[in-house]
């Protein structure tokens, strides 16, 4: 039974497809009647080292084929387009476009000079709510959605393995963070290029950098924004292990997100605000300084790592011990 299969090379391996397990399981099901069952201990088969990644691939495919995921990405792609068109219409009436107010950095007033600023503006506009909400939905649904559909029990008896399934879910959620952020960035870049001129740009510090370097910084910013969402993803995944209702998990995660965003605005809570996962989110603008101001950026990444570790462990502790009855 423990016959390891050394050469897991594709091709002529075992002649007829599906014959390999047949030869084994079929053969040892009968004789087991006479022999002690204990002899079949040890690794059941000799799986290839990469086979375990099949679940990750399947998870990605499943996630991105869900209508809900596509709708979320569609909304995220639409935000930069709407912002771009609004700015274009606004400035069409007269060059004295508002600017200055709102979401932290005053990128918006610069869009008319350089379409690349639409990327920064769009990320700044979606980071407080749209992006984390999308992550909250996907993360909250990760385990609870499978539980409410009943598919969780079949994944577990497949057997996916609880730790492996959880890791796969977390990896997929993280991949979704990246994809969602890139969707915003690419949509913004395309809209910006179509509606506004591109070229050299001025950093927040007032220095001028070339368009190439500007693009590089935009990419870096997108990566930092994606990384900023890791904390929410871990929180959502933990919530997802607590309930058998996908809707409840999504709603709870998004509710927590909104609560934390509100608490982050209350001056009396200043003492604890630095521990909120969203507190340093807008620090990504510091990447547009020259030289880059790293302190808040690193604090942000540190917070995300702490959230990932704490809620990741909590999710693991919960999921590996809970009864799956749904």
């Amino acid at each position: 039974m423990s016959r390891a299969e050394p050469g897991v090379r594709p091709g002529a391996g075992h002649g007829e497809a599906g014959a390999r397990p047949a030869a084994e399981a079929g053969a040892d099901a009968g004789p087991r009647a006479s022999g002690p069952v204990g002899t079949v201990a040890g690794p059941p088969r000799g799986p290839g080292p990469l086979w375990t990644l099949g679940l990750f691939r399947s998870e990605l495919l499943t996630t991105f084929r869900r209508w809900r995921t596509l709708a979320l990405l569609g909304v995220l792609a639409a935000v930069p387009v709407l912002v771009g068109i609004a700015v274009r219409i606004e400035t069409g009436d007269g060059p004295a476009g508002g600017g200055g107010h709102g979401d932290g950095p005053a990128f918006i007033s610069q869009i008319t000079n350089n379409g690349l600023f639409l990327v920064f503006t769009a990320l700044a506009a979606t980071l407080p709510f749209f992006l984390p909400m999308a992550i909250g939905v996907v993360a909250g649904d990760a385990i609870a959605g499978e539980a409410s559909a009943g598919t969780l029990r079949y994944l577990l008896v497949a057997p996916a393995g609880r730790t492996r399934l959880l890791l796969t879910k977390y990896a997929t959620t993280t991949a979704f963070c990246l994809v969602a952020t890139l969707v915003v960035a690419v949509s913004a870049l395309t809209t910006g290029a179509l509606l506004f001129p591109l070229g050299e740009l001025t950093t927040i510090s007032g220095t001028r950098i070339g368009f190439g370097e500007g693009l590089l910084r935009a990419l870096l910013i997108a990566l930092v924004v994606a990384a900023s969402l890791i904390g929410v993803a871990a929180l959502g995944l933990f919530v997802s292990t607590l309930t058998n209702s996908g809707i409840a998990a999504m709603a709870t995660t998004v509710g927590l997100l909104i609560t934390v965003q509100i608490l982050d605005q209350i001056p009396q809570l200043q003492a604890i605000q630095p521990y909120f996962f969203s507190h340093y989110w807008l620090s990504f603008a510091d990447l547009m300084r020259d030289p880059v101001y790293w302190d808040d950026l690193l604090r942000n990444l540190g917070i995300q790592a702490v959230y990932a570790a704490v809620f990741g462990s909590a999710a693991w502790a919960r999921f590996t011990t809970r009864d799956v009855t749904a």
Partner: protein
Amino acid sequence: MEERPAAEAGAVIVTRALTKRYRGGQLAVDGLDLTVPAGSVFGFLGPNGSGKTTTIRMLMGLIEPTSGSARVLGHPVPRGARAVLPRVGALIEGPALYGFLTGRDNLLRYDAADPTADPRTRRTRVADALERVGLAAAAGRKAKAYSLGMKQRLGLAAALLQPRALLVLDEPTNGLDPQGMREIRSLIRELASDGTTVFLSSHLLDEIEQVCTHVAVMARGRLLTQGPVAELAAGTRGRLVVTTPDTADAARVLKEQGAGDIAVADGDRVDAEPPDRDLAEVSAALVRAGVRVRGFAVERASLEDAFVALTGEGFDVAG
């Protein structure tokens, strides 16, 4: 409890004092000692709420027993679940599918979840499983457009993605049409003849009678009995049934011939416990007495009779 090693050496499932109390206090399974011999088609019988699904969940490592232990294919569960489950196919409490995926993609996903499943043979194995349950034609349709019976078949296909040493089927014919039920039964027999042990839960007595070699009966979380089907049914004696328009005369003659527990039912039927003498004599006596006999037979005890004899009550849900 170490007195049965001989029986347990060849057993595929062994539980010892297996007990599950759900959060909320419901005692669902109470001190279950189950032994499922290798190669058997094992019927797990009990009314609604008797703890069948709960037992299966514990065997599959989905829930932790409150106390007691269970071994499947020689491995302890839930601890060793990951080592055994690749060789176990399961249908638990009905099928569960991704509605937005096609039938085929559902199976591809479940197969990908098994780290021991060879990705190179995945598509062929999925196609074979679909063929086996008669779903090949509908494989490309979204699962949400499947009927209940089609979903059930797809669930079965998921259990058959690989040749298994053990199949655990929780009410597999639920929602199937009579043709589908027949197909599933013949599939089960076919799998069993290949050496697969089949553990089949059901509350349908005749289903168990038709396909199972062994049976265990549960009620209110406790095991009432287990053993070969024939033994269980044999434990309950059959009834002698005489169909005749002359019921009063027939009853009198049967009494003279030594039959006990005589009952006259709806107009033309008399049944009784058969006497300990040659039944040919009994029938001759009836004819001699001028009783017009339309039918004379011994009805074999069914599992249902056995069940009623065991529980002393009907096949009802426990409170």
